[in-house]
């Protein structure tokens, strides 16, 4: 826990673990600070340049509730140092820096890289620290009043499938986190969609750019889709049991090791009322049409692969 003193100097003091590194950081010329709460996690962000506030605001998590940064008590304080050309020495470019507490997150000449590091750490910290919800690494869309949850690790094609589902008429909830409530329902976490390729930096699109309707209400889970992309594959899913579905969700849960009881209870409730499909998919648009069709159906099919090991994607 930390406290931000005074809006303009935004001096940060670590209450729990004061360290010389933090004191050094505190001495930098902080110009402005913002504070807010997200999923019960209190966050503070200070910066050396007022012009950074705009780019920072675009990276804040969904449902960010601003609060006054003056003497704010925060669980984590981010410090962003602006770089770029030095007015006194035009041939010198300074690094942009991002810190989480006293830890250096990123140092780069490119602001986008630093903001990417800041954003991913921010989401990660919220996902780890949220007490009233469980974050599962999954894409989520809404369809006819229920949620379609697509758990999976990086590069299995979650975002592409979510985008295809949204273009086919589904409501956008998230491309990265399914936020489960205690009652097993999923809340929206509509961050910008981040398309990743193995060999390049992620490309970001706001949901509005894709023409997406953003979901507002928590939805109960209607369908869980466990899949990954393989070029040329045909989408022929099998239905898996609720217990296996809960394992798939748990395998992608941020706090699986620290809050197993809560996770099992939430997923048991969610999976019992949902169907779960598992299979390899090819092109997202073909799979999306089939998934939406499956989501309409309510019947269960006996899993023919009960004795198989669960399908957990490696990285």
């Amino acid at each position, binding site marked *: 826990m930390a406290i931000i003193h005074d809006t303009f100097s935004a001096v940060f003091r670590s209450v729990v673990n004061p360290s010389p590194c933090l004191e050094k950081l505190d001495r930098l010329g902080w110009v402005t600070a913002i504070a807010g709460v997200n999923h019960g996690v209190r966050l503070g962000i200070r910066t050396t340049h007022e012009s950074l506030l705009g780019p920072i605001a675009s990276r804040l998590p969904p449902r960010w509730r601003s609060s006054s940064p003056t003497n704010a008590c925060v669980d984590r304080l981010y410090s962003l140092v602006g770089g770029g050309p030095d007015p006194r020495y035009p041939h010198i470019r300074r690094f942009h820096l991002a810190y989480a507490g006293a830890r250096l*997150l990123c140092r780069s000449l490119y602001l986008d890289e630093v903001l990417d590091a800041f954003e*991913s750490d921010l989401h990660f910290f919220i996902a780890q620290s949220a007490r009233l919800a469980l974050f599962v690494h999954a894409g989520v869309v809404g369809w006819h009043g229920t949620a379609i949850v697509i758990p999976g*690790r990086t590069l299995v094609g979650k975002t592409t499938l979510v985008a295809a589902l949204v273009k086919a008429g589904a409501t956008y909830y998230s491309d990265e986190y399914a936020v489960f409530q205690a009652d097993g329902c999923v809340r929206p976490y509509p961050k910008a969609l981040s398309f990743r390729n193995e*060999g390049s930096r992620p490309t970001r699109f706001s949901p509005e750019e894709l023409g997406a309707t953003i979901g507002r209400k928590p939805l109960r889970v209607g369908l869980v889709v466990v899949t990954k992309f393989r070029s040329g594959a045909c989408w022929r899913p099998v239905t898996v049991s609720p*217990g296996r579905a809960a394992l798939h969700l748990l395998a992608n849960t941020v706090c699986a090791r620290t809050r197993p009881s809560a996770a099992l209870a939430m997923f*048991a409730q969610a999976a019992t009322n949902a169907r779960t499909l598992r299979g390899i998919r090819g092109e997202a648009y073909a799979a999306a049409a089939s998934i939406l069709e499956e989501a309409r159906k309510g019947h269960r099919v006996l899993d023919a692969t009960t004795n198989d090991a669960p399908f957990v994607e490696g990285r």
Partner: protein
Amino acid sequence: MNILPRARETGIVTQELPEELLIFDLDRHKAHCLNRAAAIVWRHCDGHTTTAEAAALLHNELGLPSDERLVWLALDRLARARLLQEQPARPSPVMSESNESRRQVLKQLGRLTVLLPAVATILAPTAAHALSCSTVGGSCASLPCYVGLTCTGPPLFLCV
């Protein structure tokens, strides 16, 4: 008379489902999903119930043949998942049969294989492993790099 071993009672969290049982092993960070047959055997692992009684339970509740080999199959799987306090002490004739065997039991039971005792297991991820990992040029200050990439470390923390 063969007695079922005792099931673990400490260091686990259980969650009932209509047809299955979820168990989280707090010591090993593993989650197990027991199907109905495995769950029935596990619940009766009390140090008193005999394998014959357990086989009769499987027969009564699931319609499986009243065959002790099914109980041993369940015990094998439960022991492998470390959900029992001690290893099941198998009498030697059954042991040799069982060794030849899981596949043979499956063959003999034919289409009932779906009902056979099954335990699925996953290793619960650490917080960082449950999240996206960074790709080329991405920051690895808080997230791991994608497989095959390495983190440059301080001060840049980039995946290359």
